[in-house]
C-alpha cells in the first residue's frame, strides 16, 4: 500500500479518526461483530480481541454533556467522568450506542462509583482492579481477567480459546511496537514531528479497528516523516517538553497547542494514550498467558495504584531517552490521585532529574485558555 497523501492530510485523518469511525462502527454492527466499550487503559484488550470483538474507547472529551451529567453527579467530579456519563445518559455517543457490553475497572473512586449508575443504560461489567501491585494483587487481577473471558463468552455465546488469546496478544504487541516506533521519532533533535501530530496519531489509532493493518500504516508514515526530516534545513533545537498526568482527550488543544505555540516541542507523552499504555508488551512466550497479560496491565503506572513506583520508573527513563528539558503535569479538575501525586512528581523531576516541572489543573471548558497560555509562555521563557 503506497501512501500518496501528504503528511498534513494523514495527520488530519488520524485527528478525525474517531468521528470517521462512527460509520465503520455501524458497518461492524450490521455484520454482527461484537463491540465492547471501555473507559480505561487497564482493559485487557487481548481477551476481547481474541473472540473477534472490536474494542472502543468511550472516554469522552467534550463538555457538551456535562450539564446533563451534573443533574445526577456532583459538580466537583472530574470532567472525564462527568462527560462520559453525560454522553451515556443522553445517548449522544454512537460508540456507546453500538457497544453490546461496557467493561469498566475499579480504578479511581469517581469512575467506579459512576459505573454503578451506568448499568441503568447498558449492560456493564466491572473488573476488580487491585489498588496495589503486590503478588496478591496479581493473583486477584489474573482471576479477574479469566472472569472477564467467561463473562464475554456468556454474553456473546461463544468460546475463547487460549490459541485465539495468544494470537490476539501477538497482534496487540505488534500494534504497540509500531506506535512506539512512531512516538520514538522525537528522540531525534529537533523532533521530526509535532507533539500535536503524535498525540492525534496515538489517539486516532485507538479508533482504527483493523489492528493487523496498523503496523504497516504507521511504518509508511514513519518513512515519510523521516524523508521529510532529512530534507529539512532548519534544525534548531527547541525546548523539549514531556507531558504526564491525566488523559489529555478533552484538553489536548488547550495544553499541547499552548506549549507548541510558545516555541517549545512536546517530545513525549507519558499519559494514558502515550507511553503509559503502549511502552510495555505482554510476554508472548509465557507458559501462563493469563498471568502474562495480568502482569503487563497491572504494571501500568497509574496514580490509582498505591504506591505507584512504575510511573516514576517510566518517567525517569523517558526523560533520559528523549532528552527532556522540562515536564508538564496535567491534572483534570478533581482528579485526586493525580493531584496528590504532583508533589511526588515535582520532587522527582526537580531533584532527581534536575529539570523544571509545572502542574496545571484544568477541565474541558475554555474558561482558562488565556491563563494557561500565559503560564506555558512563562514556563518556556524559563528554559
Amino acid at each position, binding site marked *: 500500500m503506497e501512501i500518496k497523501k501528504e503528511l498534513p492530510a494523514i495527520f488530519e485523518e488520524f485527528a478525525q479518526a474517531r468521528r470517521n469511525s462512527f460509520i465503520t462502527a455501524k458497518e461492524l454492527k450490521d455484520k454482527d461483530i461484537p463491540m465492547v466499550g471501555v473507559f480505561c487503559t487497564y482493559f485487557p484488550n487481548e481477551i476481547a480481541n481474541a473472540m473477534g470483538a472490536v474494542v472502543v474507547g468511550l472516554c469522552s472529551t467534550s463538555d457538551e454533556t456535562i450539564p446533563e451529567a451534573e443533574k445526577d453527579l456532583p459538580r466537583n467530579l472530574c470532567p472525564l467522568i462527568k462527560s462520559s456519563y453525560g454522553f451515556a445518559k443522553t445517548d449522544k455517543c454512537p460508540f456507546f450506542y453500538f457497544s453490546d457490553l461496557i467493561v469498566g475497572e475499579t480504578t479511581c473512586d469517581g469512575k467506579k462509583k459512576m459505573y454503578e449508575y451506568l448499568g441503568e443504560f447498558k449492560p456493564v461489567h466491572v473488573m476488580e482492579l487491585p489498588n496495589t501491585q503486590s503478588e496478591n494483587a496479581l493473583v486477584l487481577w489474573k482471576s479477574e481477567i479469566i472472569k472477564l473471558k467467561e463473562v464475554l463468552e456468556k454474553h456473546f455465546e461463544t468460546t475463547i480459546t487460549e490459541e485465539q488469546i495468544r494470537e490476539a496478544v501477538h497482534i496487540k504487541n505488534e500494534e504497540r511496537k509500531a506506535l512506539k516506533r512512531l512516538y520514538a521519532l522525537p528522540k531525534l533533535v529537533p523532533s521530526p514531528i509535532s507533539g500535536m501530530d503524535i498525540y492525534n496519531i496515538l489517539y486516532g489509532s485507538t479508533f482504527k479497528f483493523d489492528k493487523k493493518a496498523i503496523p504497516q500504516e504507521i511504518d509508511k508514515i514513519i518513512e515519510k516523516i523521516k524523508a521529510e526530516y532529512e530534507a529539512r534545513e532548519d534544525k534548531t533545537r527547541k525546548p523539549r517538553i514531556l507531558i504526564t498526568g491525566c488523559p489529555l482527550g478533552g484538553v489536548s488543544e488547550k495544553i499541547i497547542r499552548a506549549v507548541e505555540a510558545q516555541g517549545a516541542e512536546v517530545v513525549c507523552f507519558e499519559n494514558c494514550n502515550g507511553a503509559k499504555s503502549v511502552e510495555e508488551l505482554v510476554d508472548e512466550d509465557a507458559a501462563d498467558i493469563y498471568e502474562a497479560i495480568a502482569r503487563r496491565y497491572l504494571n501500568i503506572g497509574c496514580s490509582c495504584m498505591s504506591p505507584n513506583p512504575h510511573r516514576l520508573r517510566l518517567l525517569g527513563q523517558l526523560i533520559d531517552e528523549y532528552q527532556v528539558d522540562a515536564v508538564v503535569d496535567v491534572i483534570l479538575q478533581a482528579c485526586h490521585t493525580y493531584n496528590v501525586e504532583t508533589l511526588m512528581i515535582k520532587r522527582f523531576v*526537580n531533584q532527581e532529574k534536575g529539570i*523544571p*516541572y509545572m502542574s496545571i489543573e484544568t477541565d474541558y471548558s475554555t474558561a*482558562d485558555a*488565556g*491563563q494557561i497560555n*500565559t*503560564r506555558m*509562555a*512563562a514556563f518556556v*521563557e*524559563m528554559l
Partner: protein
Amino acid sequence: MLSLGIDSGSTTTKGALFDGTNIVRTQVIPTTSNPKESMRRLYEEMHTDQVGYVVATGYGRELLPQADKRVTEITCHARGAAFLCPKTGAVVDIGGQDSKVILLDRDRNVVDFLMNDKCAAGTGRFIEVMMRILEEDLKNIDQFVAGKHPVNITSMCTVFAESEIVSLLAQGVDRGDIALGIIQSICKRTSFFAKRLNLHDTVFFSGGLAQFPIFCRTLEEFLQLPVVTHPMAQLAGAIGASVIGYQKAKQILK
C-alpha cells in the same frame, strides 16, 4: 538609546523607560474596557525617537503591534524585582485579578512559579470589593487600621466574604477591625500559597498593594521571611519589560 516596557494589567496599564542604568520615566494609566486602546495611548505618550526597543507584557501583551517582543508578566516581574532590589530571592505579586509567586535562582532567573488564577480570593480585587462595602478609600488603609484589633474573616470566596462582612457590620463590629481582618485574610492566604515553593531568601512584594506598609508587615509576619518592596513596585512588570528590552536591543547592536 532607551527601551520602553509596557505592562497591560487588568486594572492599570504601566510604562517604563530605561536608559541602561536608570529608569528615566514611568507612567500609569487605568486600563479601560478597551485594553488595546489603553496600551496604544500609553505607547504614544511615552514613545520617542530615542526608543530602540519595545517589550509588551501583561494580559494585553498581544495587543500592541509596535512591540518588538512580548514577554509574560512572570518573567518581567522577576526581572523588574531583581532590578529594583538585587537581593531578591522570590517575588510575591498581588495583582488585580491574580496573584503570583515567583522563585528566582542566584542569577535572578525564574526557576519556578505559581499563579492563583482560578478565583478572586487573595487578589487585589478582593480588597477592592471589601473596601467598597466598608465605604473607605483604599488609599487611607494604613491610618484606617492603625491600632485596630483584627476580626477573623473565614470565607475563602469573595462573594461569601462580602456577606460575612455585611453581617459583621450588622453586629456593630468596628469597620477598622474588619479591614484589618481582611488584610490578614489576604496575607495569610497569599503566604500559604507562596509556601508551596521553597522560599528562603528576601521576598520582594509587588503589585498595587505593596505601597501600603500594613500589607508588607502583615505578609512578613505570615511568611516569616524578610519582605521588601520599593516605591516603584507597582511598576515592576513594566520595568522588567524595559530591562529585558534594553538587553535585547544591545544584543542586536552587537
